[in-house]
């Protein structure tokens, strides 16, 4: 029996694309206007009318619910406490990050994640303090969307999902897999405590993320002529850059703390 949150998330991640298919599609420009057609193809947003409807709904939810909550959180809770909450959330996501580091085939990144977990859970007081970053094990991104991208799965067209925001079929499925299957919190037994913890982690995480983006999102909404298109562009560029960062991280697998293999020339000479 799966937990309610994960079921909800899994359903949510699948409902978005389905709703999109049922609702309106954008009309491609005629072939007589090659520039406009090229733009249309480059934008790759065939469900734009539906996406814009969800953008409006999410924007309303954000304006009247999430943003005020995040503002209140930032004003009321002192910074050290907020940092502690953030660090605990990151530490709790270790299993998902570690699994995806391995699915990406990046052992050094998996090693970094393991070291972070061991150091921060002990020296960092159950993950409240991020001491690992100072020791050379900085946090990094890994999720099932990135893993699938490295396996060559195409992203598919742009999607704007209810609640979850900018995405695409690959990232939506990735989100469902990360939260519904890979997260061991779904495998814990049942009971009031487990239920409360599972249900509270998602909203806390949402408020934490939103509070860290307050200035950036305000700035975009203030300066963009078409915020929807700006968020679409930023989301795509950001994901592409995350994927490239992982792809290009090809550090050798021997960690610095491990005795380095002796240089062959040294062996021969002495």
């Amino acid at each position, binding site marked *: 029996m799966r937990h309610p949150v994960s079921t909800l998330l899994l359903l949510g991640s699948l409902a978005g694309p389905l709703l999109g298919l049922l609702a309106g599609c954008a009309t491609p420009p005629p072939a007589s206007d090659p*520039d406009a057609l090229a733009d249309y193809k480059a934008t790759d947003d065939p469900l734009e009318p539906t996406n814009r409807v969800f953008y409006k709904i999410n924007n309303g939810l954000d304006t009247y619910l999430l943003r005020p909550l995040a503002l209140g959180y930032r004003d009321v809770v002192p910074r050290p406490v907020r940092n502690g909450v953030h660090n605990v959330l990151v530490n709790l996501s270790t299993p998902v990050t570690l699994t995806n580091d391995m699915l990406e085939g990046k052992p050094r990144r998996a090693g970094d994640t393991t070291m972070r977990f061991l150091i921060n859970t002990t020296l960092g007081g159950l993950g409240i303090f991020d001491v690992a970053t100072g020791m050379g094990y900085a946090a990094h991104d890994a999720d099932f969307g990135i893993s699938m991208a490295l396996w060559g799965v195409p992203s598919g067209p742009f999607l704007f999902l209810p609640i979850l925001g900018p995405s695409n079929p690959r990232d939506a499925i990735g989100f469902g897999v990360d939260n519904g299957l890979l997260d061991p919190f779904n495998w814990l037994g049942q009971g009031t405590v487990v239920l409360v913890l599972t249900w509270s982690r998602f909203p806390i995480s949402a408020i934490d993320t939103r509070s860290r983006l307050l200035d950036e999102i305000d700035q975009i909404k203030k300066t963009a*002529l*078409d915020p929807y*298109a*700006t968020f*679409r*562009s*930023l989301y795509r560029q*950001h994901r592409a850059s995350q994927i490239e960062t992982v792809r290009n991280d090809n550090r050798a697998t021997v960690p610095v703390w491990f005795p380095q293999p002796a240089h062959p020339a040294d062996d021969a000479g002495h």
Partner: protein
Amino acid sequence: MIARRTLLTTTLHWAGASAVLLVLPAPLRRAWAMPSGQEATAFVRQTAQRLTAVVNGSMSIAEKRRAMAQIIDSAVDVDGVGTFCLGRFWRAATPDQQKAYLGLFHEVLVTSITGHLGEYSGVKVTVGRATPSGDTQHVASVVERPNNAPADVEWVISDTSGSPKIVDVIAEGTSLRLTQRSDYASFLSQHGNNVAALISAMRQQVAQNG
């Protein structure tokens, strides 16, 4: 034989090209070459020093804005970036529209940067290495602000205007000019590809934020 002919034609090409280069006036001659990595990093380091000196300095906000606008004018290829951001609509615009657009683009750029001076106090920029890309150099840097995680910022430097200028800033993998271009393109496609509509929207924006 073939090898010799190739060598000969190559030599002739080079001779011809050098002759053309010698005849060209200095600013145009520079436009042919892309900035060297050293030139680009030195330029970014110098610009970053000027920017941080203004942002962390003790001048009044009004003075800081004026100083900042001067740095933007001298270090950023504003017209080049503006033309890029309008994309295919640049050719569709009339000369008057092009002029009005570039003027507004300049104002939008300056107000959006100077409007956030307060948030950037205590900023520190560490300039890294340059990587050539096309006819530009991408200079890496790490921007640190108090209470913020360090951000990777890449400065894209081009020589096409005659001297090294910033043509793009890539913050955490997102290009400012690409984002701006997609914003304008989408606005235009929602408004019947009418450049006049974009210009009036920009005018309104400047009036609100400026």
